[in-house]
């Protein structure tokens, strides 16, 4: 059912797009028809250069994401369990959270140079906050009843955290993880654009300046597909880790 609706929506998008092309709102050189873009996309998928860029961008985003999640959960847990730590971190979180990742890329290049290090740094810098804040909130919001039940079963403090607080917090932490996945991909693409060596972001600008416009559209759509894949990845991860919770809420809703 959901796939039928998605197909329908895709059809509507393509129809509107084709209609705009036929109406000549924009010159066809700038707004290619869906068929031309599909051809460009086919070329893109069979071009080793393009697929290399795609692999680089996605793998760097994944590496940054894989680093961000445990770090964010660890810092968040520390923040919730040690109030002084959370207080000491607060001025920095307040100042750094609204900071656009793009703004710190040039200065990071000065500090740490190019390569994977740069990507890891910019991704962690931007994607850490949603995981951190959700972890702090989820840990601090553990209900008193759960804690007392755990204690009544004779849990020590570490056991209480590992077996009661963390499992209870995971559903909310996953909200942060989902946002972090989207940010990881975004920052990976933006860093490509600024570091200017390789990756999808670099390729997008290279093709745009070379006026290979169908390629630009195809690459943009590829970024969208990557975004969908990242979202799907988190949903699968979520089902693996907290499947019990997903099933429970589904039952409650039914």
């Amino acid at each position, binding site marked *: 059912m959901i796939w039928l609706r998605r197909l329908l*929506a895709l059809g*509507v998008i393509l129809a509107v797009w084709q209609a705009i092309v036929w109406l000549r709102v924009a010159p066809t050189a700038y707004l290619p028809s869906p068929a031309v873009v599909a051809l460009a996309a086919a070329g893109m998928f069979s071009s080793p250069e393009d697929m290399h860029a795609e692999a680089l961008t996605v793998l760097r985003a994944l590496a940054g994401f894989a680093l961000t999640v445990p770090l964010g959960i660890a810092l968040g847990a520390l923040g919730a369990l040690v109030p002084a730590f959370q207080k000491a971190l607060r001025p920095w979180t307040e100042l750094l959270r609204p900071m656009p990742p793009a703004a710190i890329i040039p200065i990071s290049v000065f500090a740490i140079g190019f390569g994977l290090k740069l990507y890891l740094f910019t991704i962690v810098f931007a994607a850490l906050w949603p995981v951190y804040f959700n972890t702090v909130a989820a840990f601090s919001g553990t209900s008193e009843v759960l804690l007392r039940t755990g204690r009544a079963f004779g849990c020590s403090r570490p056991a209480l955290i590992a077996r009661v607080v963390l499992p209870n917090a995971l559903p909310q932490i996953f909200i942060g993880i989902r946002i972090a996945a989207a940010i990881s991909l975004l920052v990976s693409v933006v860093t490509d654009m600024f570091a200017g060596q390789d990756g999808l972001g670099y390729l997008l600008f290279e093709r745009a300046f070379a006026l290979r416009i169908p390629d630009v559209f195809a690459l943009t759509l590829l970024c969208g597909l990557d975004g969908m894949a990242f979202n799907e990845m988190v949903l699968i991860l979520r089902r693996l880790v907290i499947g019990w919770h997903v099933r429970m809420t589904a039952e409650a809703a039914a």
Partner: protein
Amino acid sequence: MRPLPAINLWGVLSIAVVLGVWQAAAWHYDTVLFPGPWQTAQAIVANFATIAGEMGNTLRRAFTAFGLSVLVIVPFGIACGRLRPLGMVVDPMLEFLVTIPPPAIIPIAMLFAGVGDTAKIAVICYALIPGGLINTIETVRQAPPMLERVGRSLRLRRIESMALIDLPAAMPGIVTGLRLAVTASLLVTITAEMLLSTNGIGAFVQRSQQSFQVAAGLAGIVAIAIVGLTVNLGLRQVERRLLHWHYRAGISET
């Protein structure tokens, strides 16, 4: 008189420690490529007029785009939430659009609108509208069904019930979505300015660092952090004013 807020001692301490270590490191390396807090402060004073002017450009763009996005998000979001057939088509379209990272469409925006204000504002609107719409649509759908029945027994027309019932009922969700959107608009504006640089604080940061004036670049970054923080704090106040009835009545509980 309101009581003075308690001072976050740990926060003050951590700021002092970080600034101290940073300054010591800057003295140790003693190069213009690694300015300390003191040089950064000097750069802020020296470039104050430029930074303030460029920040003005940035804020003007961010708020123009934000205003345009609100004009789309609120009425269209309520319509999609209330009119089922429209929602069926629009939902999956939005699902796909939110997965394309906003910076990835910068090259396409550049093709159509060059590097001027229009291109940047288009990119910002693209970044804000899908997320804002999804938020609004969901909130409208989750409104208690009793409200709609009350509207029907008062014989309100469709458009009247949208304006008089759905809008206020969805207000809390809309405002939360818009608060996120304001922060996002600053973020995307600065990214767009760095890539399509003509003016604005993003272009200033980019320019200073390309000409190896790292201290001036850092000054720009500090300015961004302060503006971001101020905007966030201001929004929290506005939210509290606008929605005091919601927080007081605790409607979200039922």
